[in-house]
């Protein structure tokens, strides 16, 4: 049986296929609806940037869990290039934003595109630098990890403020940016949890127990991040609810008054906080790859539902197209991880570097 793999030569071709497929689903006139591409872009940008950021933080603080997953995680760095390409695809959809009709100094289409494109490219460039250095064990890895994290935080802040918050302009929440980059890190760790589950048994069999043990830290980190996420969510919600100012609270009120948004809010609260908190409370659960993998998958679904909760009232979208786009993206990510031996530098190349 043969399997599909990419190489550095064929990667741009596959990338083009992905982008063209997404463009076709979005603009092919199959169904009406405008928000699917934006949601896909917001979700996958968080995921792809977040997983590299999680690796960068692990490298900076000398965490041991990254050792076994480094190649799998960093294999996804070329995918950081997808976000700027999809942002260009989003140009015809900018009229979704209420400010598009009356552009201001900060919120106007050319500047919006320019700054976000520049930042996404900066994230790709710094991510590439960090990933390559980390893979070859370069002593300058911590410095490039710091640079990448700067780009990551700035980019996710703008994703929050520009791409999502400005959908409801002039609604404001100062925590939104920090909330998004913490969520992106959470998503990155969840992706690492899934990788941990998918890590082939044969790869583990050759390793000593002491080498596999650090993988358990992912369960611990997911548990910690569920508490952090809960804290940030509560901090934001409490202030809006307590203040009860019409211009602030309408963001929540509008979303909680009808189905399916109210159901979505219950779901993402459960998936992002309650389930990981209760599920990973016990020591045995944190040590089980299956439990960690299941919780990680649930967290990713919860984060997706939350993004949907933010975007859906402003930009309706057909569920079918949304699912197809995201499944396609997920398949592409899996293919990238699967093809890592062809995509990443080989041991010989690394030693030459």
């Amino acid at each position, binding site marked *: 049986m043969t399997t599909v793999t990419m190489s550095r030569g064929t990667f741009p071709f596959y990338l083009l296929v992905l982008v063209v497929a997404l463009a076709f689903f979005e603009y092919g006139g199959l169904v009406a609806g405008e928000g699917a591409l934006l949601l896909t872009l917001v979700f996958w940008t968080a995921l792809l940037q977040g997983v590299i950021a999680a690796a960068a933080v692990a490298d900076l603080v000398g965490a041991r869990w990254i050792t076994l997953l480094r190649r799998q995680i960093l294999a996804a760095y070329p995918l950081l290039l997808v976000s700027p390409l999809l942002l260009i695809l989003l140009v015809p959809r900018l009229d979704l934003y209420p400010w598009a009709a009356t552009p201001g100094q*900060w919120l106007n289409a050319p500047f919006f595109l320019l700054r976000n494109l520049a930042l996404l490219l900066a994230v790709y460039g710094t991510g590439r630098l960090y990933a390559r250095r980390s893979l070859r064990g370069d002593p300058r890895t911590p410095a490039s990890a710091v640079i990448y994290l700067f780009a990551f935080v700035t980019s996710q802040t703008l994703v929050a403020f520009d791409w999502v918050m400005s959908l409801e302009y*002039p609604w*404001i*929440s*100062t*925590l939104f940016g920090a909330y998004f980059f913490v969520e992106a890190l959470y998503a990155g760790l969840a992706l690492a949890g899934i990788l941990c589950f998918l890590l082939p048994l044969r790869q583990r069999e050759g390793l000593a127990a002491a080498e596999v043990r650090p993988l358990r830290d992912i369960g611990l980190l997911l548990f910690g991040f569920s508490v952090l996420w809960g804290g940030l969510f509560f*901090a934001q919600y409490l*202030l809006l609810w*307590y203040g009860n*100012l019409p211009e602030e609270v309408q963001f929540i009120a509008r979303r909680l008054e009808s189905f399916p948004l109210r159901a979505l809010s219950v779901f993402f609260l459960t998936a992002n906080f309650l389930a990981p908190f209760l599920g990973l409370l016990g020591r045995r659960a944190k040590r089980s790859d299956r439990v960690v993998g299941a919780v990680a998958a649930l967290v990713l679904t919860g984060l997706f539902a939350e993004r949907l909760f933010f975007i859906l009232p402003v930009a309706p979208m057909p569920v079918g197209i949304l699912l197809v786009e995201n499944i396609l993206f997920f398949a592409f990510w899996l293919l990238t991880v699967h093809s890592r031996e062809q995509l990443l530098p080989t041991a010989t190349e690394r030693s030459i570097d």
Partner: protein
Amino acid sequence: MRDEATEISASGRLETDVLAGMRRPGLRYLAAVGLCALLALMLFALWGGMALTGMGLSGKNNPVGWAMLITNFVFWVGIAHSGTLISAVLFLFRARFRTSFNRSAEAMTIFALMVAGLFPLIHLGRVWVFYFLLPYPSERLIWPNFRSPLVWDVFAVTTYMIVSIVFFYVGMIPDLAIARRRLPGLPGKIYGLLSLGWQGTLRQWRHYGRLYLFLAAFATPLVASVHSIVSWDFAVSIVPGWHTTIFAPYFVAGAIFSGTAMVLTLTIPMRRLLHLEPYITVDHFEAIAKILLFTSLIITYTYIVEHGLAFYGHNPFERDQYLYRMFGDYRLLFAIMIVCNSLLPLTLFVRRLRRSLPWLLVLGVLVNIGMWLERFVIIVASLAHDYDPYAWGTYNFSWVEFGISVGSFGLFFLLFLLFARLLPVLAVTEIKEHS
């Protein structure tokens, strides 16, 4: 055999070096204690005067009803945060360098909380009605307003204080047993009582390890909850510059930032005076400096977001408030705050400066000045300049408030000096475990 002997002698030297600080005090130490005691006395005398005369002795006015005293409260609660960060959070993250600082930082937490707790009482004016804040059974059915974050504060700070004291004490038990063994006479007997019959058996260590882990896990969310609630004292009000969702994480990061700076301010001189150079190394200080840099970056991020979004939205009051902070009556304090909290810590990107103890000491002091001013600017500027120009005003501190503030530093340093003489300043057993 030889290795074992070397290990025993190194372990004995560690005990001797740490317990040396608990011997007969020198003249300089006594002078420092005397000075701090005088300042602490000044605090209580001025507070007494204010309680008898009335709050007119403070510079508070209408509209600035919260000023220096509340600034001090927020500042000292903030200082209390790094203790738990270094002890509990770094313990959970298995950061070994914490063992050089955790004892001092935990002590600092407790003393800072004790000092912080005084300020709401001083601010009450009629301190004898402080029990109004507690959920006491009232026959008149006047219950505390549980919807007020000021009441949440009472619960949060009290819980934090209790957990911090238990954590501090439990962590110290094996070291108290060492003091019992090494110190003769009455002190040895007192440490014997305090060590609760610790023998260092396997069973005791197992229980100890588990308890310490659970306490660390309890204490970690408390770090976030306490200063989040302090931030909500302000943020739930509909006051420009206060009502903003980022306040909770911003205050938590600020608290850790100022607390870390205070750890540097206290441990750098302590290391030198007690000759602890072999145990608190420059590498350890570099790790603390990285935490300082990291938290400074979070603070700077928050400044940028807060100011940026004030100009993004449609709220003219919010925009005006941030312009007032930058260019209004307190612009000088604002500028010092930016320099101390955002610009100077950037020097820590340079490795040589991260490892320079004189610079870290200076930076620690400057960051504390900056963080005190930050709280002052947030509190006073928002109250002085809110919605209605007719109700605008300014605040000038009174010398009584100033004296109380200086006295609070005296009380804090007095408690720390007593700690340095009476209890082991390093976690001896943990250092042994890691060496």
